[in-house]
């Protein structure tokens, strides 16, 4: 069986290598993808359309903002599904004998983490907000923020982290993130534009259409950050305790 799979996989490899003869060479600036009007428009016009220096954030949150909303929905789905597959409802039978782990949180670790976690969270907020001018954005900042909660859970125990961020609040915050994202899009639609057409927000905000896009992008990144933070922590809580929400790792 393994040999058969190996042969099959090699055949696919040969097929892909056969196709590779036709590709442009690595780094060719005249390649169809690199010289196409779409990417040229992104590079040339991001400044004038959105006044955001980071082209990747502009494309992610504005030109292809619907993809990003769906990506946020995918993260949300993952959190929901993991929680419900591992039996997160009240139906969860507690017939399994629970491992009672008896230990004291270590002094050095807890005090170091006590100093580090606020710095991590501020850095996460910085990455989120500064995604307009440097690499960063909602996903990156959200993961760092979620990791700070996971660090609390690792240094003390999961219960300490869950006191600060209970699991049902996790899902509410995650849903709130999608509400923020969709809400900005819906607001644009109600003001007369298409869904996620932020320029129309200049009718309610006292800024030019380009700066309205700038600020709306920050708004959607905040929404994304909420969802990712909450779901990263919910994933950790569900997976490390097998759905029981008691002490695991």
């Amino acid at each position, binding site marked *: 069986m393994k040999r058969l799979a190996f042969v099959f996989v090699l055949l696919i490899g040969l*097929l*892909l290598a*056969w*196709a*590779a*003869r*036709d*590709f*442009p060479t690595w780094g060719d600036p005249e*390649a*169809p*993808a*690199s*010289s*196409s*009007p*779409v*990417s040229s*428009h*992104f590079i040339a016009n991001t400044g004038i359309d959105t006044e955001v220096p980071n082209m990747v954030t502009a494309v992610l949150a*504005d*030109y*292809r*903002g*619907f*993809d990003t909303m*769906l*990506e946020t*929905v*995918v993260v*949300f*789905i*993952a959190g*929901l*599904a993991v*929680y*419900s*597959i591992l039996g*997160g*409802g*009240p*139906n969860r039978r507690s017939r399994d004998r629970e491992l009672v782990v008896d230990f004291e949180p270590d002094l050095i670790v807890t005090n170091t983490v006590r100093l580090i976690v606020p710095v991590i969270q501020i850095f996460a907020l910085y990455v989120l907000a500064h995604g307009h001018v440097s690499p960063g954005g909602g996903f990156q900042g959200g993961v760092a923020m979620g990791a700070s909660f996971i660090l609390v859970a690792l240094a003390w125990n999961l219960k300490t982290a869950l006191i600060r961020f209970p699991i*049902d609040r996790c*899902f*509410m915050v*995650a*849903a*709130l993130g*999608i*509400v923020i994202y*969709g809400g900005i899009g*819906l607001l644009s*639609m109600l003001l007369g*534009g*298409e*869904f*996620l*057409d932020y*320029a*129309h927000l200049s009718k309610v905000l006292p800024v030019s259409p380009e700066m309205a896009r700038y600020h709306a992008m920050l708004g959607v990144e905040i929404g994304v950050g909420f969802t990712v933070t909450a779901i990263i922590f919910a994933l950790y809580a569900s997976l490390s305790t097998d759905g029981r929400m008691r002490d695991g790792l």
Partner: protein
Amino acid sequence: MSDSIVWIVLFPLLGAVICTLFGTFSKKLCYPVSVLSMALSVWASVKTLIQAMHSSDHQVSYILGGWSLDLFPRGVGIEFRADLLGALIALVVSGVGFIVSLYSKIPVQRQTPGKEPMYYGLFLLQIVGLAGITLTGDAFNLYVLIEVAALTGYGLIAMGSNRAAAATFNYVILGTIGASLYLLGVGYLYLKTGTLNMLGIHEAIETHGLHESPAMQVAFVLVLLGILIKMAFFPFHAWLPKSYCHAPTTTSCLLAPLVTKVMIYVMIRMILSVFGVDFSFESTWWAEVLPWLVVVAIICAAVMALAQREIKSMLAYLIVAEVGYMVGGVWIYNYFGLVGSIFHVISDACMTLCLFLGAGIILEKCQTTHFDGLRGLFAKMPLTMIGFFIGGFSIIGLPPTCGFFSKWYLITGGMVSERWEYMITLMFSTMVMVVLFFRLIERIHLAVDESGKNLGKGHGDLGLTKEQTRFDEAPLSMLIPLLIAASIVILVGVYNQEVADQIEIFLHDFDLPTGVHYQ
């Protein structure tokens, strides 16, 4: 409202978010919210279909983000495009979702108690994914929507019993391979053309003459292989019977009619709108080889369905056979075959819905779907059985149900393009399905014990007590959706000419051979 096309996707999304936000406070809120959001989504898709029918070029186009289409090729934003094909299938998706959401009250309470907010959240997000797949006009957005539909599917199935979770793992692996191969194919297309919009890719292929390029051939293979894996085409069908058989009732009622059919829509869209008729059928070797693979697929699936002793796994193998019909209808490279294939997508969604709703009711009332537990059911639940068998007759292909008309077009296509192997296989599998369903009818209406001996005519002689044959119909919230589905099966059959007209208007834009007899 010219943006009703976006509302098809937005209403279920809003419903899912409301279910999750407020569901933890009040579990009773989830069912009304989901029914309401699905009803609004059906309304939006009806409006979109009417808009598409009355517009000048028979399509509705909407750029998310408001970027204009003037920039070649077709703008820089993401486009939602509903031509007649997409609008029809979006209507089918939201309609089936609405019917299943009506049906879902009792099964969800029984099988996944306490998890209603999450179940309905995943349910509505699945509809978002499926409806989005039918409406989007951007190749990468299609990948993200395929993953939305897939992930919610995995969650919905694995929420059930342990057996369902074990079956889902295989589904996850195969589904990820399929979606990733599609993504790789889109990457090759982007590499050679520089754009992601579907019509833009088509224009770029035509302008730069990329028909003979090996990268394009491999991109075609990768995209189609990915889609074939996701639609459970033989030999990649192994994930389907086990997953759908052990899934919770509402999940199988939602996924079975829709997921594979939407993937067939994606295949048709890729062939017609992205790669173009010339490239797909004439520059590649698929049109010669694939009908033979289809023959093997249909025969194997029909034979496996005969071997099953349980309703749901039998129906799952029937889905694999129906997928074979539709793939064959596309690849025989004929106008009637494509009309038949698209019509079959619509009718198969309706009749599979009917059958799975009926199987769910049987599971609910008799606690079993095994053949031996079905004796005397007609006396107990006559309306359910009538609805179930309307679905069965449609699969066999009896007029006036819609299955008859779609088979008619498919067989005409096979005859006209002189693909006798496909035609003969269709007829053979029809015979097998006749055997399948009449065997069921025999067990349910007449009295047959395990060795096949007839205990007597009529349900009075079944040897069952009066208690067991007392009239005990399904609860209304489950019965009415089944009857609605059964009547849709008949209505689509009666009004088949109107539906076929719309499909033919869509297909006029493409240059397909119609054969020598019909001009």
